[in-house]
């Protein structure tokens, strides 16, 4: 299979090459990214550097396009993988290769591809390099669009699992209909779709385990004037697996989203209920790089570091809750808005376990008694003058360490943060940031500060510190800079990083503390 796919890629590439030399130029694009750390011993923080002192994640990607054909590869080298990321990412190799043909209403891809069905409740194949995640599927995918009214796609293949392939086969597809266009509704847009995924894992044992797991979902979205509605219901067949605690139980999920948006005001309310909806690439454990579907924490991702000390981690087996997000712009020229106006942002989210239990069944939406997470936060932006811009932020959070496998308790915190950017000249600016977190739980109080100097359009340098003075009396200092030129950016940072969850794209990974020098370089062409 693998050889066949590579051969297909090569064939298309060579056909394209031949054509170029005869008639026209193709288009070659690509990118290079390296993220490397030189680790240091740090006796104050109890950090011991690994024996070879280094970690280096490297990605080189090439895409070639010629008219309706395209082909490409991605080469990855872990020399070795950065500490904290899955150690199964090792050595190097061509991890992604594809060839595809795309017409106005038809496309076919052979090789590796990324895709998502609906909101990802039953399937998402994607890449998130920051946490070493890549679940691309190697196989074949076909898509056809009938007058842009009916779209159908199907695929089959094997999911990537680190540097190898998962021991499973995946088949999936979807059918979507543009209802508003079909009914010629002028004020509305409306779409409906059904999605299906099948995962096959061979089983020859004596337990009553079905080698096939099916998941289905139905999505619907509707927008009329300022209102928008989106919903997805998903069902998963019985799945006897490690991540479902070996209970041969089916699962379901519901996602509802309602929005009302007019100029100067935006709002959305999202509700989600999950019951045994984890779906791994195999029946083993799930986690980074081993999930077939995507169940992100539906909470606000903050830009202030102290508000992200304890982010929520979705409990895919039983969770219910929601998020309310309101954006409002106090008009400029009004009494409160002043000369420049004031953008305000209010966000609240909370998640609980589902009432009931696995033996007697769960309620559909009613929360149980265990609170997993709560975050109520408000942020405002105020321009003082043409050259001074400020932000003010407050968050009240409750985090249950149960979501990362620790005891059931609640850490409550209050975080106040703000920053001020002062534009010194047309091309130079200074930014000051101050944060404080009050808590009586876990590591108690924290403070943080940062100063950043930018010289437009290319250069930035900063120095900052996060200080825990409630428990460990540890400083997490950072000093660094970056230089950007066209499509290239190079950054160098020295400092101490705390252990904890890092989250990228809604998926979180527990990272160990380290002290060291970090070089990052990204370039595309």
């Amino acid at each position, binding site marked *: 299979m693998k050889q066949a796919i590579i051969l297909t890629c090569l064939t298309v590439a060579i056909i394209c090459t031949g054509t170029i030399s005869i008639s026209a130029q193709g288009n070659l694009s690509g990118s290079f990214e390296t993220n490397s750390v030189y680790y240091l011993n740090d006796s104050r923080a109890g950090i011991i550097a690994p024996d070879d002192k280094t970690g280096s994640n490297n990605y080189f990607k090439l895409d070639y396009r010629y008219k309706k054909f395209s082909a490409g590869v991605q080469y990855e080298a872990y020399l070795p993988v950065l500490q904290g990321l899955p150690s199964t990412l090792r050595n190097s190799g061509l991890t992604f290769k594809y060839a595809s043909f795309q017409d106005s209403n038809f496309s076919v891809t052979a090789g590796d591809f*990324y895709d998502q069905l609906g909101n990802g409740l039953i399937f998402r194949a*994607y890449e998130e390099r920051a946490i070493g995640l890549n679940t691309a599927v190697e196989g074949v995918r076909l898509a056809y669009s009938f007058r842009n009214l009916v779209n159908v796609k199907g695929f089959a293949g094997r999911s990537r699992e680190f540097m190898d392939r998962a021991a499973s086969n995946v088949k999936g597809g979807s059918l979507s209909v543009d209802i508003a266009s079909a009914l010629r509704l002028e004020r509305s847009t409306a779409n409906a779709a059904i999605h299906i995924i099948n995962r096959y894992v061979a089983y020859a044992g004596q337990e009553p385990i079905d080698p096939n797991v099916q998941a289905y979902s139905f999505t619907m979205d509707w*927008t009329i004037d300022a209102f928008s509605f989106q919903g997805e219901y998903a069902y998963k067949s019985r799945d006897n697996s490690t991540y479902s605690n070996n209970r041969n139980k089916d699962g379901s999920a519901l996602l509802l989203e309602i929005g009302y948006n007019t100029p100067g005001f935006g709002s959305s309310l999202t509700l989600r209920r999950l019951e045994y909806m984890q779906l791994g690439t195999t029946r083993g454990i799930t986690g980074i790089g081993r999930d077939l579907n995507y169940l992100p924490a539906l909470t606000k991702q*903050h830009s202030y570091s102290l508000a992200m000390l304890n982010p929520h981690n979705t409990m895919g087996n039983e969770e219910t809750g929601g998020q309310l997000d309101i*954006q409002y712009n106090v008009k400029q020229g009004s009494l409160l808005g002043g000369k420049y106006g004031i*953008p305000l942002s209010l966000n609240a989210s909370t998640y609980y376990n589902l009432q009931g239990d696995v033996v007697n069944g769960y309620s559909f939406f009613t929360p149980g008694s265990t609170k997993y997470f709560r975050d109520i936060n408000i942020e405002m932006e105020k321009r003082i003058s043409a050259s001074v811009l400020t932000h003010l932020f407050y968050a009240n959070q409750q985090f249950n360490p149960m979501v990362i496998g620790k005891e059931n308790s609640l850490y409550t915190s209050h975080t106040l943060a703000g920053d001020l950017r002062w534009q010194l000249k047309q091309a130079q600016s200074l930014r000051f940031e101050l944060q404080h977190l009050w808590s009586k739980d876990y590591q108690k109080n924290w403070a943080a500060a940062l100063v950043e100097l930018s010289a437009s359009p290319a250069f930035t340098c900063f120095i900052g510190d996060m200080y825990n003075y409630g428990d460990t009396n540890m400083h997490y200092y950072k000093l660094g800079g970056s230089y*950007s030129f066209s499509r290239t950016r190079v950054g160098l940072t020295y400092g101490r990083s705390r252990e904890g969850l890092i989250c990228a794209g809604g998926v979180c990974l527990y990272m160990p503390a380290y002290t060291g020098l970090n070089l990052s370089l990204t370039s595309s062409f």
Partner: protein
Amino acid sequence: MKKYLLLGLICLLISGVSAQTQLPAVQLHTLKGETISSRSLLNDGVPVVLSFWSTICKPCIEELNVFRDQWTKWQKEVRFSMVAVSVDDARSVARVRGFAAAREWPFTVLLDKNQDFKRALNVNTIPQLYIIGADGKIVYSHIGYTPGSEKKVLDILKGL
């Protein structure tokens, strides 16, 4: 087998290819839920400023706010359209509509929910901004935003 693949790549390189100068064709979604092709962004026949952003990227939002604040003035100086491509995925895409509405961005906002367009243009870091000429060729790009860097964008647009 890998050596054959590498051989194929070398064949491509020596055959005379150009670096990425054209927009790849990828499906994107409007805030109303319609599906459009990235190629249709060029339909207006004027230069396009393309900016990749997300609701969790503060410099991205600062850059887009600067374009909003200067929009009327700059449109009098040079004709161009602007498209802000949100790479928010299922975690935060619900916030995008409200974000754009509250900030009253006068330009088009599109959704790239599984980052297909981002990947096709080899964008690894956001914000990343492109200027695409009326002929569809990419004429400029930069990574990151620092206050004042929008001036260079305006200068390039005036030179097209």
